[in-house]
C-alpha cells in the first residue's frame, strides 16, 4: 500500500497544509470523527491526525495539519507523488450523528478541518448545521468556503477583528445560544483552551456538547494508555473510547498538563531537525 500523496495544498504557507492521500480501504471505512496514525520514516514517531474528509470513489482521504514539531515539519517537506510510510486507520469512535434539529459546530485553528468532517456528517443526517469558526486573523481562517457549501450558516470570529466578529468564537456561540432555544447539540474542535471555553459557554444552557480531544498518542489502538483522559472522574482512552467526549465532564487542566509531558525532548528533537534541514 503506497499511501501516495495525490495532492498537497498550503493553506497557511509553511504552517498549515492539506494533503489528499490515496488510501482506498481507509476511505471506504472512515466516518466523521475518525483519525489516522501516520509515520514518515523508519525512525519516525507515530502521530495522530484527524481525517478531515474522504472520497471513497477516488479512494482518498484528506488530512490537514499544523507544523508544530519534527514530524509535522517532515510531513511539510513531502510533495505530491511522495509516499507516506505508514498510514493506519480509521481509528477512534465515529461521531454520534443523531437527528437533533440544529447543531452548532465550533472550530478553531486546524481544528476547523476536523470539525468540517463532523459538520458534514450532521448535515447528511438532516441536521441544520451552524458553523462558528475562529482564528487569530482573517488570513489564518480555514475551510470557510467548504463549510459554506453545505452549512446553513457560517459565523466567523477573529481575535484582531480583521474579519467577522472581533473576539472569540465562544462570544458568538453564547449569543447564538441565547437567541435560539432549539439547539440540539454543540460540537467543539480546536485548541484545548478553546474547547474548554466552549464547554463553559454551553454549560449554563444545558445543551449536549461534544469535544474532540487531542492527547498524546502512541499506538492509537488502545494498548499503551498514553492517551488517557479523565472524563466524569473516570479514566478513558481517547483513541478507543473517544476522541469525542462529553465536554462538560472532561478534565481539561489535566489534558493540558499531559500534552506538555515531553515538551523538552520534542523541542530538542525539532531543533536538531531544523539545524540539519534548514
Amino acid at each position, binding site marked *: 500500500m503506497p499511501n501516495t500523496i495525490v495532492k498537497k495544498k498550503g493553506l497557511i504557507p509553511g504552517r498549515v497544509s492539506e494533503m489528499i492521500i490515496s488510501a482506498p480501504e481507509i476511505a471506504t471505512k472512515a466516518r466523521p470523527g475518525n483519525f489516522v496514525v501516520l509515520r514518515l520514516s523508519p525512525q519516525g*514517531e507515530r502521530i495522530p491526525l484527524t481525517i478531515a474528509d474522504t472520497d471513497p470513489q477516488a479512494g482518498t482521504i484528506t488530512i490537514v495539519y499544523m507544523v508544530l514539531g519534527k514530524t509535522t515539519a517532515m510531513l511539510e517537506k513531502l510533495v505530491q507523488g511522495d509516499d507516506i510510510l505508514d498510514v*493506519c*486507520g480509521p481509528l477512534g469512535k465515529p461521531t454520534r450523528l443523531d437527528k437533533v434539529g440544529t447543531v452548532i459546530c465550533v472550530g478553531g485553528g486546524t481544528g476547523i478541518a476536523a470539525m468540517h468532517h463532523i459538520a458534514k456528517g450532521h448535515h447528511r443526517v438532516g441536521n441544520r448545521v451552524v458553523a462558528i469558526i475562529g482564528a487569530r486573523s482573517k488570513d489564518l481562517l480555514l475551510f470557510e468556503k467548504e463549510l459554506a457549501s453545505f452549512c446553513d450558516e457560517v459565523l466567523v470570529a477573529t481575535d484582531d477583528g480583521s474579519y467577522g466578529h472581533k473576539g472569540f468564537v465562544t462570544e458568538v456561540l453564547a449569543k447564538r445560544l441565547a437567541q435560539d432555544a432549539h439547539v440540539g447539540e454543540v460540537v467543539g474542535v480546536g485548541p484545548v483552551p478553546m474547547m474548554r471555553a466552549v464547554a463553559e459557554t454551553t454549560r449554563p444552557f444545558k445543551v449536549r456538547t461534544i469535544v474532540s480531544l487531542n492527547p498524546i498518542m*502512541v*499506538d492509537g489502538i488502545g494498548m499503551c*494508555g498514553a492517551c488517557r483522559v479523565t472524563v466524569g472522574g473516570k479514566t478513558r*482512552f481517547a483513541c478507543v473510547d473517544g476522541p469525542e467526549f462529553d465536554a462538560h465532564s472532561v478534565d481539561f487542566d489535566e489534558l493540558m498538563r*499531559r500534552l506538555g509531558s*515531553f515538551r523538552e525532548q520534542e523541542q530538542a528533537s525539532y531543533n536538531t531537525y531544523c539545524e540539519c534541514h534548514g
Partner: protein
Amino acid sequence: MAKKSKIRPRVDMPMQDPTVRCTNFREVALGYSREQAMLEASRCLQCKTPTCQSGCPVEVDCKGFIRAVARGDIETAYGIIKETNSLPAVCGRVCPQENQCEGHCKLAPTGKPIAIGRLERFVSDSYYAKNPCDAITGRDDCPMLREDLKVAAIGSGPSSLTVAGYLAARGIKVTVFEALHELGGVLTYGIPEFRLPKSIVHTEVEFLKKQGVEFLTNQVGGMTVTIDDLFAQGYKAVFIGVGAGLPKFLNIPGESLIGVYSANEFLTRVNLMKGYRFPEYDTPVPLGKHVAVFGGGNVAMDAARTALRLGAEKVSIVYRRTKNEMPARREELEHALEEGVCLECLAQPLAFEGDDAGNLTGIRLQRMELGEPDESGRCRPCCIEGETYVLPVDLAVLALGTGPNPVLLNATPELKQTKWGYIDGDDQTGETSIPMVFAGGDIVTGSATVVMAMGAGRRAAKVIARRLLGEE
C-alpha cells in the same frame, strides 16, 4: 533413576556481566557453544516415557531433539523442533521452562533438569540460514499454496504466527493483518531487546514469508478490515489473535500526573519505537532518577530492567506480597536483582503525589503483611493499619496486567464474549460463536505466555486445516 550424586550439574549459560549489561540493551544470555550444548544434551536420560514433552504446550519432542544434539546432529534436531514449534528461537528464550518441559523432566526433582530451553535456543540459533521449506516438510520446495483456501489471521503475535506456520506447511495460504507497523505482537513491542533481540523475531517472520505467508501491516481488524469483509474477500476461515493489550490502572489519586506510565506505554516507546535511541529515533522516552515499577510479573521485571538501562539511579519494584509470591520467571527476577533492581515488598500504593506543575514526586504506600492463603493458594496481603509512608520517585511504571483489546470486539458484537470480556472460544478448537472464526492467545485466556498462545494457535490451525482440506 540415577542417584542424585551421580547427576552432573547443568551446563551454565554464558551471560553478559551484570555491571556491564545494565548499561546496554544487548542480549543478556549469550547462548551455548556447540560443545556446551552437546555436553548438556548428553545428560539426558532418554526416558522410555518422556514426561518433558507432555509439559510443553506445543508438544515439542524434547527427547528426540536432545538425542540429536548429543550426537552433534543439529540439523536433525532442528527439523524435530520445527515440526511442532514455529518459533523455537523465541521459545528457547522466553518460555517459563521451569514450569513446562523442564518442570516435567524426570530430573526436575533432583534440581538438575535438562536445560531444554537453552538447547532449543542453541539449535534454532544455529539453523537460521536453513531453507524454510526443507526444515518443515523435508522437501526442497515449499508446498504449493492453495490461494482458493486462504485463511486470515488478525494480529501478528505468537498465536497468529503459529497458525500461519502450521497452515503454510500444509499448503494453505495465510494472510496476517497487523494493526501496528511492525510484526510480532508482544514479542516486538513488549519484551525488551536484551531478553529477546528483535532480529530473532524478524528472522522467524522472514522464515514464514519465505513459506508464502503474506503480512499486511497498518491493518486494524474491525476498522480497516472487518471479519465480514474478510469472508467477502474469499477467506475461508479467520483466526483472531489480537492479544490482551489494554493496560490496567490502579484508579487511585494522582494517576494522571506526569511521570506515571503504563508498562505498555513505557515498553512500547522503548522497544517498538526504539526510544532508547532518541533523538536518532523520534519517539521520546520518560527518564527517571528514582523509578518505581508496580507489579511482580515478567512485565514488571522488563520495565524495571529497562529503566535501569535508560540510566535510572534507583529502580524499585513495588509488590504487595513478597519475593516468593512474585509470578515472574525466577530467572528474570534473579537477573533483575543481579543488575541492581531493588524490591519494595509488602507495599500497596495508595496515591501518587506531585508538585504544583503536575509532576510526580512520590508515592504514598501502605505497608502490608501476609495473611492466610486465599483461593489461589497464595497468602493474602493484609494492610497494617496506620503504617503508610512515601517513597520519593519521579517515574512510576504500572505493570498491573492487561485487559482485552476492545477494537475488534466493539466492531464485532456477534462475537460471544466471556463475562470478563475475552473471546469465548471452544476449549478444544478455539472456534468462536461465529462459524469458521477461531480465536486464541491472550484474547481468549487473558495475559498468559508465548507458548500458551502458540498452543492455542496450533490447536485452531489443526482444525482449520482438517476442515479446509476436507479431512473432517
